[in-house]
């Protein structure tokens, strides 16, 4: 038995080889991350902008919307356990609209994440579902890309709903005495979305001045629940 093949030497050699492979392939991953990072950031911004364009007409404001963002602290009424964001649209410096993130915890299958755009006058300009796990083909009509009715998807009925004209307790489905339609057999998804939209609009109106005046990038403090 030569010293070359002793247990210590073999295991040291194996460990060194494993280490070398780890270093080389970690370096490969790190350089791929560095190389793709600017492009990924740009894609994220682009996707964000595309989403906001769907809920808020691009011509209704003139500020750099993506940069004019404030952070919301964890807010239970909006379902934001980890906080969220609010974008402030302004026209010639005057408040035009707020785009808020929110989430309904009472969906049929877990959280339903939404964004709501509401004008400074309390009129909703659009709502989009950004994440959900509702049943495919049944409750997923809350997502306009899955809605069979392409001409006027279910979610589009929120556009034009006004905080001044619809009382707080009527922001729910017609079955519960509210004003919004729903699909028979999948009421829970529609109810969850309608109610969180109502709560978000109420929140935006109650805190409108604080939301518009917070410094970009700052986290809001002392907001009304």
């Amino acid at each position, binding site marked *: 038995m030569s010293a070359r093949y002793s247990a210590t030497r073999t295991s040291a050699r*194996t460990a060194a*080889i*494993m280490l070398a492979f780890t270093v080389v392939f*970690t370096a490969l991953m790190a350089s791929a991350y560095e190389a*793709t990072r600017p492009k*990924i950031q740009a894609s*994220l911004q682009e996707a964000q902008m595309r989403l906001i364009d769907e809920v808020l007409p691009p011509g209704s404001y003139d500020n750099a919307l993506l940069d004019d963002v404030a952070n919301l602290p964890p807010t239970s009424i909006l379902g934001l356990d980890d906080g969220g964001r609010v974008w402030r649209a302004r026209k010639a410096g005057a408040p035009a609209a707020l785009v808020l993130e929110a989430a309904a915890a009472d969906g049929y299958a877990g959280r339903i994440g939404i964004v709501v755009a509401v004008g400074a006058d309390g009129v909703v300009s659009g709502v989009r579902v950004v994440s959900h796990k509702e049943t*495919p083909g049944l409750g997923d009509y809350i997502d306009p890309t899955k809605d069979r009715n392409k001409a006027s998807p279910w979610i589009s009925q929120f556009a034009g709903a006004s905080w001044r004209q619809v009382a707080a307790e009527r922001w729910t489905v017609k079955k519960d005495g509210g004003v919004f339609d729903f699909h028979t057999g999948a009421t829970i998804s529609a109810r969850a979305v309608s109610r969180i939209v109502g709560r978000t609009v109420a929140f935006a109106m109650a805190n409108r001045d604080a939301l518009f005046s917070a410094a970009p990038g700052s986290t809001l403090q002392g907001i009304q629940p």
Partner: protein
Amino acid sequence: MISAPQFREIAYNGLWKQNTGLAQLLGLCPILAVSTSMVNATSLGLATVIAMALSNLVVASLRNFIPYEIRIPVFILIIAALVTVIDLLFNAYLHSLYLVLGIFIPLIVTNCIVLARVEAYAAKNDPVASTVDGIMMGLGLVWVLALLGGVRELLGSGTLLSGIEMIIPGTSALNVFGDDYPGFLLAILPPGAFFALGCLIAAYNAIKARLDASTRRHPPAPAPLEQPPGSAVEGAAG
């Protein structure tokens, strides 16, 4: 390098005889999860092809430097690194598709078909043959995924190729059964994947039995096998 008969043998194994989805039954996790539409299924299949070709190439090139005792951790390290790179590239250049495929791209790492081909083929063969093997095995998975995704999408929502605009802008899905098609929910839900895959495997076995029966009546000249058949990793799940 690789000879024409060897190429044919690898292609036949990957696309038909040892098809990962129908014969080896490896990598069922993505098959069942993403085959709700043809575009999703094919996209994940193509990502798997890239992952398999690259991991087979890298492992075959480095096979003489990998000690036998630690080959599995090294293989996993190589596969995980390559899949991470593919994941980043998808995120950067096909962002909307990345949002749809989401968690399933990183999960290619855990798809045992990748490790199975690395261990069973790339660790013992030269880089060119191994790369071809990875591509052929992957393409075998792609056609099964595309067929399964197509059948489920057609039955479930009455469309074909929905989501194609995420890959080729300006195109749109085919609405095969028109707007009044009520949909067939079961085909889209997970059980539909099991039913459809079961039917596919039954059809595959029936065709294979007929082909085998006809070769027995007219036996071809025996050709020496370069690869032992059925060389998949036994007992691997996922």
